[in-house]
């Protein structure tokens, strides 16, 4: 068993015995279910209204009415919930002094960070896969295009992956879990607001750069069903950058 798998297994074990995981999981699933329900009811009411006005069965666009709104709302939910999932990763190790055990064992910091990141990513993807019940259930009663839903899930997975990488970095900087959660929330918010700054700057170089750095436009394209390499590159490079900085931060603890 490699150290990567050892740490991964231990992290998953710790998630499943920690109340935080269950609380975050329950809140996430409840809210995503509730939003999906509200959107579906809303779509149903619109269908009834259209029926009354036009006296015909209109073909409702569920992709737009239900799923796109659902994906946009879940984005916000993730901003709040994922920092709570990642806050303990390194902060707790430092609090418990197990950080010393990890760094005095024959394992690399790369393995440590990647194992921790993959553990929390697996947890998140597991939760995310449970929300696929909504499209599966709706597919029995209505028809819609599956492609935008698949790219929407790709968007959620990548977006979550980026948020989690921010969380890993935030957790590496402090031994206080609350500080770690707020820090990663702040980082995510900042990356998001870069888009707003970008649109203020308009179609200038700075404006375009800022808009590119924000995840808004990349997420937007994916949710609309456009699967482009540049957006995937954006997310993957963002994740790698955050984890790289986290590596430097963990390493720097040894020097201070």
């Amino acid at each position, binding site marked *: *068993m490699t150290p990567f798998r050892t740490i991964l297994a231990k992290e998953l074990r710790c998630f499943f015995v920690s109340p935080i995981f269950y609380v975050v999981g329950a809140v996430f699933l409840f809210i995503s279910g509730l939003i999906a329900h509200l959107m579906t009811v809303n779509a149903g009411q619109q269908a009834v209204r259209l029926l009354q006005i036009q006296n015909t069965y209109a073909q409702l666009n569920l992709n737009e009415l239900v799923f796109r709104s659902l994906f946009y709302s879940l984005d916000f939910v993730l901003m709040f919930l994922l920092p709570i999932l990642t806050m303990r990763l390194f902060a707790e190790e430092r609090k*418990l002094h*197990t950080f010393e055990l*990890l760094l*005095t064992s*024959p394992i690399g910091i790369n393995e440590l960070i990647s194992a921790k990141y993959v553990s929390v990513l697996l947890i998140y993807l597991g939760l995310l896969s449970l929300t696929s019940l909504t499209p599966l259930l709706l597919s029995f009663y209505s028809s819609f295009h599956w492609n935008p839903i698949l790219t929407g899930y790709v968007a959620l997975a990548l977006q979550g992956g980026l948020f989690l990488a921010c969380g890993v970095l935030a957790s590496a900087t402090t031994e206080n879990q609350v500080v770690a959660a707020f820090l990663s929330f702040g980082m995510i918010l900042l990356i998001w607001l870069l888009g707003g700054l970008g649109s203020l700057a308009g179609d200038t170089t700075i404006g375009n750069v800022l808009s590119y750095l924000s995840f808004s436009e990349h997420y937007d394209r994916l949710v609309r069903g456009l699967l482009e390499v540049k957006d995937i590159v954006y997310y993957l490079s963002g994740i790698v950058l955050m984890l790289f900085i986290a590596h430097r931060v963990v390493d720097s603890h040894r020097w201070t």
Partner: protein
Amino acid sequence: MITVQHVSKHYGHHTALDDVTFHVKKGEILAFLGPNGAGKTTTMRILTCFIPQSEGMASVAGFDCLDQPMEVKRHLGYLPETPPLYPELTVDEYLTFVGRLKRLTPRRVASRKSDVIDQVGLGSVHHRVIGHLSKGYRQRVGLAQALIHDPPVLILDEPTVGLDPKQIIEIRGLIKSLAGSQTIILSTHILPEAMAICDRVVIIHQGRIVAEDAPDRLSSRLRQSEKMSLTVKQPLPNWLERLRTLPGVLDVLPTATPNTCTIDCQLGQDLREKLSQFVVSQGYGLLELKSLSLSLEEVFLQLTHQEENAGLGEPNHIDPIGQSSEQPPT
């Protein structure tokens, strides 16, 4: 087995370790003694590759701490001051986790785990969650963690701190039983502990080594005179003055206990026989006569005090480490 040569550690302008040099032979137990903040933990962290030194060379089991940290980490077990435990895991799970972190094969983990559980006496609690264990058991789990991969070098940072006297004796016994097969460095600020377990003591103060020797030799080396305690039954009024006139006696001081005095004699002379003859001939009624040795506490206070008086930068006049007889080329 462990070599530390001219190691210094600076944090900005603060110097945590200043030109520390010592060696530990295979199978030896070395105690690091010093007040809090003296640099004990810093030295241990350098040896475990947790922090790098600013200057100098440190090596463990023949591997350099800066160049071959992975090899060093494989060859040592480390118990930090606070045992690094996950409260949500059971003792079994935890030891399995650490064993695999130390790159043992699953089969080896299983056999070593049962060995160390027996060794540190965790048999009755091995299936329990660490968060529910008492402090004594947690300390033992910490020790088991350091032993799981059967490392040739053990580094224990205050292994008995916070334990009750019975547990302290048990842990000390355990550490002593490891001597010979394992090379051990332990830090403590409890002086009798160093006396009880260790072959050699390194006294460290303000980041510098102020003395290094066997515990008993350390106290005898620092003596400026032979001290004796004398208790008699019925002294005459001027008995102290009369004792003072004896050849070889430097000074006689009364003590708080009635009819007892401390006698300073010239170094290297055993006056017990002459003193007893004198006391008996004078009819004082000899009750007790014993030679006093400096306790490690006194040694320690004396050393750290002298060090402060000597000021920084001056060569150590108590223990010129470079001339120490114990310099094995490990």
